[in-house]
């Protein structure tokens, strides 16, 4: 098999990436600017022996994903901010029942109905804290159609490996821009399958982790698993009055992600080797920020870029150690300061952190970021 070259937009790339990762079930509901993904999956999945279903709303879509995932399939939906808000209760169910699934969330400018056709990055916190209670998700952000393909495969692999909902947090303009996408030969694509139990049903404890993760017995395997959103013990049985079981369960669903943060972490550094000022960005803004760094370098300003490909779990220790050498961070994001708070928290006061916000509807121009770099450099 040879590699193939395609000219794809982010929506097609994320769909094809999902199929390459083994996704064979998609349930979704139309919403701008994410509908293209559902449309493309409706076209492609039946060809791949997969199932596409358009549900009656986003709540049904994610509920169907949970059911299909417990049915043994790799599953994905696509949505945008308002639809993602509707899904949140079942994001919590997925977290607490440790159900692998992927949500391609093509962000638009919010809050509420906002600017349906235009860019926004306001769902960073929703993708982490959208449901109630303590839990963890993994959130990945691509900067190009190529990364939409490559990273969504990783999103599936992480979802299956850690039994966790993974949010693939895209930008409207990434979903709609077309670029060259290189598809590696099939045998070079790493695909992870969920771990299945290898003990007898009598000995199987469906929620007892083995090396952080509990092997997952899906429907029909003969393990007769009880799955509930109630606080449950290692057997899956409700234990709704035991603070000890509650602590054990919440620690488990959080710690399996927190303690593996360094393995999940994926960060692009550009010109950081001798940087004094670091731009922090993700998604589409990573691209303008890179151009701004190039401008700064032409003017002999030692600027660099830290682009987050994984946003959550937040790479706290990474920023803490970066703050030993970098004293000035600029966070450029299309919202009123969401990642900025995290960077600020992670650097523990060892560096200054400035926000360069856009409020939605437009991406930072490289010149705007460059101006901010100059400002910070001059100490204004």
């Amino acid at each position, binding site marked *: 098999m040879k590699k193939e070259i395609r000219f794809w937009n982010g929506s097609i790339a994320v769909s094809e990436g999902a199929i390459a990762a083994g996704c064979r079930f998609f349930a979704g509901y139309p919403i701008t600017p994410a509908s293209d993904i559902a449309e493309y999956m409706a076209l492609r999945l039946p060809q791949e022996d997969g199932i596409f*279903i358009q549900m009656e709303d986003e*709540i049904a879509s994610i509920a169907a994903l949970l059911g*299909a995932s417990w049915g043994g399939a790799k599953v994905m939906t696509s949505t945008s901010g308002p639809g993602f808000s509707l899904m949140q209760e079942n994001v919590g169910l997925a977290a607490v029942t440790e159900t692998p699934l992927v949500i391609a969330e093509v962000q638009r400018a919010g809050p509420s109905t906002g600017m349906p056709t235009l860019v926004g990055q306001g769902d960073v916190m929703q993708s982490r804290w959208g449901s109630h209670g303590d839990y963890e998700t993994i959130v990945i952000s691509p900067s190009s159609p190529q990364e939409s393909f490559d990273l969504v495969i990783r999103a599936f692999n992480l979802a299956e490996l850690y039994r966790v909902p993974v949010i693939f947090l895209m930008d409207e303009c990434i979903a709609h821009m077309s670029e060259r996408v290189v598809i590696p030969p099939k045998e070079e694509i790493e695909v992870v399958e969920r771990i299945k139990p290898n003990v007898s049903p009598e000995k199987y404890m469906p929620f007892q982790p083995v090396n952080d993760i509990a092997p997952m017995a899906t429907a029909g395997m003969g393990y*007769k698993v009880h799955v509930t959103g109630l606080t449950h013990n290692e057997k899956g049985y409700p234990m709704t009055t035991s603070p000890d079981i509650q602590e054990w369960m919440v620690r488990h669903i959080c710690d399996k992600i927190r303690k593996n943060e360094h393995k999940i972490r994926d960060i692009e550094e550009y010109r950081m080797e001798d940087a004094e000022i670091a731009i922090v960005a993700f998604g589409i803004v990573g691209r303008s920020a890179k151009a701004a760094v190039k401008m700064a370098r032409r003017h002999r300003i030692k600027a660099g870029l830290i682009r987050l490909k994984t946003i959550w779990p937040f790479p706290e220790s990474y920023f803490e150690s970066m703050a030993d050498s970098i004293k000035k961070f600029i966070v450029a994001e299309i919202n009123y300061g969401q990642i900025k708070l995290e960077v600020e928290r992670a650097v523990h006061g060892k560096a200054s952190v400035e926000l360069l916000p856009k409020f939605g509807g437009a991406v930072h121009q490289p010149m705007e970021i460059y101006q901010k770099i100059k400002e910070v450099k001059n100490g204004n």
Partner: protein
Amino acid sequence: MEIEARANPMDKYLRADRIPHIWCSGCGLGIVLNAFLHAIEELNIDLDKLAVVSGIGCTGRIAGYINTDSYHTTHGRAIPFATGLKLANPEMKVVVISGDGDLFAIGGNHFIHAARRNIDITVIGVNNYNYGMTGGQLGPTTPLGARTTTSPYGNIEHPFNLCHVAHAAGAVYVARWTVLHAIRLKNSIKEALNKRGFSFIEVIAACPTTYGRRNKMPDALDEMRFYREHSVIKHGIDPSQANIEIGKEIVVGKFVDIEKPTFNEAVEELKKKVKKK
């Protein structure tokens, strides 16, 4: 005096380590569970290939007592969960057992759309006229005039006729029984489990603790007696003629039994048509 604990022949269908259940004495849910277990026994259904899905509420706890793959989902979302499960794993027999509030208020949208699509699942909707677990509030099936904790002066809302809703939305099998009709209920469940497509059984169930005692039927037997005196079997009747009103007759029976291609079958046909060579 010591009472000897003897194995019940139905024990193999239950998660014995989860008993005793949480239901109040006089609750109709035990009868529903019993009828269901006898139905799967008589049909000799492989427990490894049976999945029971429920939402939230008293009825929602049924899934957790049955010794099979069982899923206790979020409030109202049992049907879309079951839809995903059945589509991804068509070998499974998928049954949703949930209450009237779960299936028809918060989850009403999912019910009508699953029926419209003819998803190949069986839905057993236990109708006790109120929200039992949260303390007896009015629900989408509370009869006009009935007293609940959120209709202290009597319910001013018109209730759903669940069988009419199911029929109108496209269900291929629709039946209604009360928990007094335990054997007929069991037989209906057997028919529904063997039916291709979206089958629905409404079970009118006593809830003396939070409904009956506010509506002049404080004892479970009062409700059972009412069912005996007021139920009329009318097979094949147009479900629109089977409204439930306070103090009036309860029409029960098998109302709908038709054939229609299921969503699963349509998907398989589509796949064959478009499959890449």
